[in-house]
């Protein structure tokens, strides 16, 4: 089997269901399966560190502008739909649980479990995107999308706040908030879409019985990515949605 030209770098042949009673062999550059797994994990974390920096730049921009224009940011934030945002947070946390359970299913050799939990994770990830789509739709209808048609009408009981909202500069400051909102949630959603693509590939290979308790690195690495995207949302939700909730 090892001398077959079809053997891939993980040591099993393409297109053949893997007999998991037989011992797995690591790729040729590794001594043990454990070393292979540690290398994957470290490599994935190095990638995630670049992701921390990538989102970090946006969080820094957010912090700087929010410090400069706190009132406009709070007012703009209060127009976001908190129940939908909270629902999406719960959906993502749920999907993290099902992702962890998919990996656990591999650890205990339950192949049906891997398939079910991967499908659930994908369903929850898609739900998040659909809810986000409805939220974006509302923002387009309300003319809260930065650009030529941007118009921020503040519905406030405070007379001072309502007058100030007519100030063109105040409008620009609110536009900065919505620019950051769309860039940050948009890039987060892009990560979710990429994650769904990776999950689809994993689902395909799981269906072919590629993963078991000895080898499930791709599942675990995708899990790290998926949970990281969840962490980004854990910070985005309070920073974007809950900023102006108490000003009502």
């Amino acid at each position, binding site marked *: 089997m090892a001398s077959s030209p079809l053997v891939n770098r993980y040591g099993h042949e393409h297109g053949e269901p893997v007999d998991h009673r037989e011992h797995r062999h690591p790729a040729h550059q590794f001594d043990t399966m454990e070393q292979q797994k540690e290398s994957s994990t470290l490599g994935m974390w190095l990638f995630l560190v670049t992701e921390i920096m990538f989102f970090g730049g946006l969080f*820094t921009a957010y912090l700087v502008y929010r410090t400069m224009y706190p009132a406009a940011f709070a007012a703009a934030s209060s127009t976001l739909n908190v129940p939908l945002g909270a629902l999406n947070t719960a959906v993502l946390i749920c999907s993290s*649980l099902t992702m962890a359970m998919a990996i656990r299913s591999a650890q205990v050799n339950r192949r049906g479990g891997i398939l079910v939990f991967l499908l659930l994770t994908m369903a929850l990830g898609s739900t998040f995107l659909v809810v986000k789509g409805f939220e974006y739709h509302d923002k387009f209808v309300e003319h809260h999308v930065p650009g030529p048609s941007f118009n921020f009408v503040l519905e406030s009981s405070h007379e001072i706040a309502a007058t100030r909202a007519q100030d063109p500069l105040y409008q620009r400051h609110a536009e900065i908030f919505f620019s950051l909102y769309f860039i940050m949630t948009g890039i987060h959603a892009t990560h979710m879409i990429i994650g769904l693509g990776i999950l689809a590939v994993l689902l395909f290979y799981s269906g072919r019985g590629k993963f078991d308790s000895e080898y499930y690195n791709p599942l675990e690495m995708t899990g790290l990515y998926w949970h990281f995207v969840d*962490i980004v949302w854990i910070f985005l939700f309070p920073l974007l949605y809950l900023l102006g909730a108490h000003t009502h």
Partner: protein
Amino acid sequence: MSEHYVAPVSLYVKVFVALLIGTGLTVAASYFNFGVFNNFIAMTIAVIKASLVLFFFMDLRHSTRMTILTAAAGFFWLVLMLCMIMMDYWSRNAIVLPVPGK
């Protein structure tokens, strides 16, 4: 050790419930006006939630020291970036230079 460790389902469910409670608390706290503490409360809960995901779902607690160091370095540099930049913006207008001749 980490090779054969399998977390019990109940642990994952507990972490999941803790994360949901954290979300509820964040939303509830945001409707009260605690002044400057609103940010502090929201970010404290977010950091606790993120830590739960990092240590239990991402299994950092069973990762090698090298991996933990790598992850910690990422967050450390993020905090460094935020602090350095905010030091500049917060202090930018704090110093009023004397005008010559006045």
